[in-house]
């Protein structure tokens, strides 16, 4: 196959993908972008470009944090189609494990994070096997209560084991606490690396799901349990894979988040609600959607809190949630979600 051919084919695929996105969706995203752009121009002119750029960086930094965890939520949603209340606490536990590896055992932070991701994947696989699999995956209420029980246990257990002092989670990236200036606005290297890490994670997970056999099974199961059974796919094992993957991604997210929030048993609670919102806004079953939505929420918070006087920093989080409810009213399946009707 010649290069032109392959280029042509990928262009064709791109058009096909746009076609799949749907006209309505393109219009709604376009409208959103237009509103944001108009707002940006006005405030940038009014309050100065440097401050505006700084706020963009702030919004992105928080947005990527929300996105990281939203990714884990999307994965677990695809695996279980329930609200996994324990997802944040699993990430918290994983982050503590990474902390113990790095701080107590002296393992370099990036390696400690990878080891913790593996450990939490194993742990989540075990949880799935022992606590989730005995229930029919269609029995949503029972599974929801199990995740609530897990939430309580993990949160309290972490409190008993590690207490509630705030700990610093070391940055796994080079050049810590250093930043560089872009048109006068400060951007911390660690933040830039966090963005790249999250993007890389989205890419890797997407590839894992689209290119591997287990990924195919996972997508199949999350699309239809019954059809997947009929195809000979092991539902339990596939869901277990989903739990493990979600936990690993969650732990990665947790370590990115803990860098800015400090580490203690409740730290995920301060982020989780926005990650939930991001996952929902993105459509619950779209990884890319979750990341885009996470960034949108981060930016909305920063911009509304920073520029709209009566909102202020204290009410900005609430505004983000209001925006989400508004978007859901217009697009009940989120920005990128497939229009699948499910019951909870």
């Amino acid at each position: 196959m010649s290069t032109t051919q392959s280029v042509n084919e990928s262009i064709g695929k791109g058009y096909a993908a746009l076609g799949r996105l749907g006209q309505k969706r393109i219009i709604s995203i376009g409208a959103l972008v237009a509103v944001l752009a108009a707002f940006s121009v006005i405030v940038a002119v009014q309050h100065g470009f440097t401050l505006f750029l700084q706020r963009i960086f702030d919004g992105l930094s928080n947005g990527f944090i929300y996105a990281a965890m939203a990714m884990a939520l999307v994965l677990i949603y695809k695996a279980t189609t329930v609200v996994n209340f324990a997802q944040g606490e699993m990430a918290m536990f994983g982050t503590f494990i990474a902390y113990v590896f790095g701080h107590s055992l002296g393992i370099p932070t990036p390696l400690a994070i990878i080891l913790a991701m593996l450990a939490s994947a194993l742990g989540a696989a075990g949880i799935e096997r022992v606590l989730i699999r005995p229930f029919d995956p269609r029995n949503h209420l029972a599974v929801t209560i199990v995740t609530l029980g897990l939430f309580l246990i993990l949160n309290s257990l972490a409190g008993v084991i590690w207490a509630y002092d705030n700990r610093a989670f070391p940055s796994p990236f080079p050049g810590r606490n250093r930043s560089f200036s872009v048109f006068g606005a400060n951007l911390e290297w660690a933040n830039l690396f966090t963005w790249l890490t999250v993007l890389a994670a989205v890419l890797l997970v997407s590839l894992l799901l689209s290119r591997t056999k287990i990924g195919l099974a996972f997508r199949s199961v999350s699309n239809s349990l019954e059809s997947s059974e009929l195809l000979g796919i092991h539902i339990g094992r596939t869901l277990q894979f989903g739990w493990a993957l979600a936990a690993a991604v969650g732990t990665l997210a947790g370590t990115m988040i803990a860098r800015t929030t400090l580490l203690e048993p409740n730290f995920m609670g301060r982020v989780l609600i926005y990650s939930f919102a991001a996952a929902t806004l993105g459509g619950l079953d779209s990884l890319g959607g979750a990341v885009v939505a996470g960034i949108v929420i981060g930016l909305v918070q920063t911009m509304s809190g920073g520029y709209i006087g009566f909102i202020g920093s204290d009410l900005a989080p609430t505004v983000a949630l209001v925006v989400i409810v508004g978007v859901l009213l217009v697009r009940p399946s989120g920005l990128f979600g497939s229009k699948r009707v499910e019951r909870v």
Partner: protein
Amino acid sequence: MALVTLKQGTPAHRAYVVGAWALAAIVLIYVIFAYRWGFAPGSIDKAFRLTQINDVICYAVAILGLNLVIGFSGQLSLGHSAFVGLGAYTTIILVADHHWSYLATVPVSAALCFVIGLVVGLPALRIRGLYLAVVTLSVAYVFPTLVVKYDSLTGGPNGKKPARDTGKMNPPSWMPFSNAGRLASPLWVYCILVVIATALFLLVRNFMKSRPGRALLAVRDNQTSAAVSGINLPLYKALTFGASAAIGGIAGSMLMINRPFASDVQFGLPLAIFLVVGLVAGGAGTISGAIPGALIYVFVPYFMSAWTTDQRGMPPGIKQVTKPLFDWLQGRQGAGSIAGVFFGVGLLIFVFVLPGGFIDGIRRLRSKVVQVIPNPSWLRELHGSANPPSTSHSPSSGGDVTQAAPVVATVRSRVAKPVSVKKAINLRGKTT
């Protein structure tokens, strides 16, 4: 097999039903006189315990309201803490700042929460399942921040309570316990709450049996078929959400009658989640499940926490087994959190042992003793008698079992195994 079998509609069955209600009434009334009669299991004659029992009543009403949305119309709402909070703040603000009487605020709470519930329920017309869960979760999350933001009205994080001398509900002198000293007020509150709660439970029970109630169940069981069958789906969904919020608001007012103090953290996400836990633990979709659900919500964490701080109150046996654990916990910074671990483990055990909730467990237990054979009116009409038909499945069971008109009825009635056409023809030849 059950020890006793009762046919619905017979005098024996009627006596059984009346007896059950009478027993419930006796238990409710006994609480009032326990302090006099000397026999007070679980120290129900102590003011503090009475306040806790009153809490149970309030939360039972809150769970009842939530059940309308989750259990009966099948929408997952995680925002009911906000309605309970709204009701509570309505009452406490009217009482503290405008000197209303507590009871006068209850209808206001109900009406306000109904309206806000309708507004919040509107997204429910378009948004379903998990999306709705996240929307309602946002409501639960936002409520405390609004309380803090508008602190001049709500008291903010410091909480709101009535002025010192106006906080108490005192019984009228004709009540038998009006001179029971410190017990008088909680007992009077108990009476008021029991009356409100009973009224609400009966209301919901009758509503579920009414035409709109059945429509609601239809929505839960199958949205599409309900819509096709001519039920005004959006109207019912929105109204249900409103009614459920109104009941939640009344529960909030009741909480304030019992303990006139409201703070933002009281009505945050944990309450929203625990209401769902209580609902499921009691039994989603059952009206009576709200009561065990509330009991679990109030007492399980209480005793978990109490035993964690002080092992003296622990039942023997458990005390010995857990001693090494508590020795290890001694002096640890987050030791108190072990109660949360226990509660979580208890919840898991609960889901595994009683997946259908407490009421389901009770029913299964009861079915070993008493079995009630249903005898609905349409069956009586159909058969012209009070006896149920003897067929093993009823025609009401849905599409898959709707019987086709017998095509080869003669063959079917004679052979158990399928016969080849040849044989069948032979058989037929013989019979005809």
